[in-house]
């Protein structure tokens, strides 16, 4: 059982070049902010390090932070063996949203990442099968959960708005 600060210290010791930051101004859990292209290496370490053993990815959610012109991904991790949790966050440019995939680390991330791609257009680099998942494969009207999304008038001849 480790607190977020201890986890940050361990990570800092192992990844001296990365810029990791712990945001504790939140009313609930603190967030560990990492860099989007390093998240795969970081995750691999989080999973395999004997002190941390984050063997389970509880949740992965994309968020559109339109005011900061960013697309973010939140990772909620848990260790079923050591019973501790951590929230990671990576942010990437809205015009070129690229994040390294963590499917190698947690296989369950596969569909979560596809969903984030489908609904936000976040591109997960090296993802084995990055296709739309919830929306139709031929949906070309953009990414519905982005804040500036506009619904098309028709899809395959069917009227979409009420």
């Amino acid at each position, binding site marked *: 059982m480790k607190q977020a600060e201890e986890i940050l210290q361990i990570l800092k010791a192992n990844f001296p070049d990365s810029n990791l930051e712990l945001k504790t101004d939140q009313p609930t859990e603190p967030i560990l902010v990492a860099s989007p292209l390093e998240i795969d290496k970081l995750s691999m370490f989080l999973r395999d390090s004997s002190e941390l053993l984050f*063997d389970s990815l509880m949740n992965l959610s994309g968020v559109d932070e339109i005011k900061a012109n960013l697309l973010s991904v*939140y990772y909620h991790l848990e260790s*079923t063996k050591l019973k501790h949790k951590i929230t990671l966050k990576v942010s990437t440019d809205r015009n070129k949203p690229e994040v390294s995939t963590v499917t190698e680390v947690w*296989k369950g991330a596969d569909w979560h990442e596809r969903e984030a791609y489908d609904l936000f257009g976040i591109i997960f680099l090296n993802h084995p099968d990055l296709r739309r998942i*919830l929306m139709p494969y031929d949906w070309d009207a953009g990414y519905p959960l982005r804040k500036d999304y506009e619904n098309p008038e028709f899809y395959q001849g069917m009227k979409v708005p009420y």
Partner: protein
Amino acid sequence: MSQESSLNTKSSAIRTEEMVLNMGPQHPSTHGVLRLELALEGEIITNVIPHIGYLHRCFEKHCEAMTYPQIVPYTDRMDYLAPMGNEFGYAIAMEKLLGIQVPERVDYIRVIMAELQRISSHLVALGTYGADIGAFTPFLYCFRDREKILSLFEMTCGARLLYNYIWVGGLSHDLHPDFVRKTREFIKEFRPNLKEVNDLLSHNRIFIDRTANVGILPVDTAINYGVSGPNLRGSGIKWDVRKEDPYSVYHKFDYDIPVGEGKYGTVGDSWDRYYVRVLEMEESCKIVEQALDQLPEGDVQSAIPKRIKPPIGHVYSRVENPRGDLGYFIISDGSTSPYRVKVRAPSFVSMQIMNELCKGYMVADVVTILGSIDIVLGEIDR
């Protein structure tokens, strides 16, 4: 001539080809509108590609447009076999974000409802599983008992399927004066009925032959995929959010977490996943009985905030739904509706193991494995 010779060189082996079989979206046993693309070698499965999204009802978009109390009915419609659990999860998450302490009676009633819902949800899982394997009668027996639970819910809040009962900070109605007596009566008559289903299905030799040693899920794989709930416990690990990350008043009750033991085959096979559900119903009965005994008095609406306007921030909270670990990730921007809500749906995660489980089995086993995972498409697609 050249063609002939090329044929001759290959004639030693019969030309075989993979057959692609499309199961769904309209298929009797896909439990809704799931489409499975099966690559077959004869009747042996070489690959399974699930296609989801046929029921994508834009839950997360609706959350961003609705106010916090308005979201509750939409949560009902995600896992429509366990709406009480969904509402419970949402209420817990919001109360964590708002810092509300609900009266004890509210907590007890919520637990009773969630556990009754677990029984009713597992009954559907059992019944449809039986129907998948070919035994149709247990399905009707299960629905008969489920009707009784639904009438208990109806008595409390007036709705049969989607309740809008558990609100942020309280409940929409207090219990009906007859509720306690009728629930006790239900549990009394439910136990023998469960035994009947067990005799008819669980310990039937044909059923065991069909499900034991089929679709074995090792614990490591399950955790790596993030599988939770009865599917994870079927693999033999005692892991339940109610015990690991206690919420509400679950710590006050005495109950067991059933796990798969590999009674008729290998630990983690379809039969284990199925039987964990049967045992869980019994445990839920125990919890409901204890909660009814200890039920305190009080006002169920005293803690409901007049206007829900949480501080800027985020919360991740989870509950043990019948299908597993249901998580809500809510980001608030300080206004009356959330900035972003993401639901970690247990079926969404469990569905990913289909390919892993099905490889090398036969077409008939796809149905067995799919049924043993017990998915709800409303939750997968949201």
